[in-house]
């Protein structure tokens, strides 16, 4: 499992939540480029992806590349409800979309659904 968020504390908290479910976090990334490099290197089954990232590209861009090259399932994690963002996620093979803040229960449910599918 990889965690992508440009807020390092949010990434740390998400990692802790994932590990609390008994899963392993292979790394965290803060930009689209870092996320793509991490995914190529570690080939995670699932990526938790924030939409707004530092840098030119956002989480949707990174997810497109990761999905095409590594084939990881991408769960989008977003704080925004903006229709433009949601429309972009829709077109991007999203395995699931979670809205921050995320409870352990919601996270477990989403990951189980994605891995079971």
């Amino acid at each position: 499992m990889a965690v992508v968020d440009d807020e390092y504390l949010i990434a740390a908290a998400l990692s802790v939540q994932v590990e609390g479910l008994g899963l392993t976090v292979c790394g965290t990334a803060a930009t689209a480029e870092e996320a793509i490099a991490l995914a190529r290197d570690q080939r995670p089954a699932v990526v938790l992806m924030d939409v707004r990232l530092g840098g030119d590209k956002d989480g949707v861009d990174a997810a497109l590349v990761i999905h095409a090259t590594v084939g990881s399932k991408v769960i989008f994690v977003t704080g925004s409800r903006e229709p433009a963002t949601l429309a972009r996620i829709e077109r991007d093979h999203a395995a699931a979309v979670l809205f921050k803040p995320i409870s352990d229960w919601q996270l477990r449910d989403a990951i189980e659904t994605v891995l079971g599918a």
Partner: protein
Amino acid sequence: MSIQEGVIAGLAVLASALAVTVFARRGDRRADAVRFAQLAELNARLVVALEEGTEAKQDLERVVAERTSALVQRDLLLREVYHRVKNNLQVVDSLIVLQARRLSDRESRTALEALRSRLFALGLVHQQVMGSGDLETFDVAPFLEELSRRLRDHAGGGVGLSVRAAPLKVGLDFGIPLGLLVTELVNEAIGRSGPGDGAIEVELAQAEAGELVLQVREGGGRETGAPRIPAADPASLAATIIEALVAQLKGVLTVSNGQGVRSEVRMPSPALS
């Protein structure tokens, strides 16, 4: 005298001057010369008035453009501030998650989870204002729907939920305490509900004379008539928060304990400034 008045007065003088000219006896060259001079002067005044009008219009257009750009700027800044507020709340939420993992006792962790849901309510209010056209007010109905649903999902366990709220525009001053109050009442109801219980009902209705009635009811139904866990322990944090928020909203809280606990808050409808 305004430009318009000046133009109208000028035209009136011009018209009378023309009339006088038509009826003037031919051959009276001196009178013609005087009339001509008067007309030339009137014409000059009209040209000046028109120029002033054009200038004034340009000034006005400039002011409108400046104001429009200031408004666009204000919207951008407000959006940015709301985004920052939301982001900060998410960072605080993450800090709570990180802290919770360091605690071993269940009670402390449950308390921190409850704090997370209160923060979530604050964040959701900001999300509503961010999405509204005027960046100041939002409709309380979809907000209560989403808040209650997310609180239920956050808790897990699949308790039924029904939300009925009348459309009502509110600002932050009212939306924040209302959102926090609903959070407490719904979390209390979820905490008291078990598998097989009826749905939790949340209702916000306009009563007569500018009064709002908020109701949160548990479905009940585990064992009809069986004694239920009473409403918020008066010494609990939830009770303290509910009391403070009801007071802030100038409301009155009534709790009845029948088949399930039913909390009702009657409060004045907010006046939007």
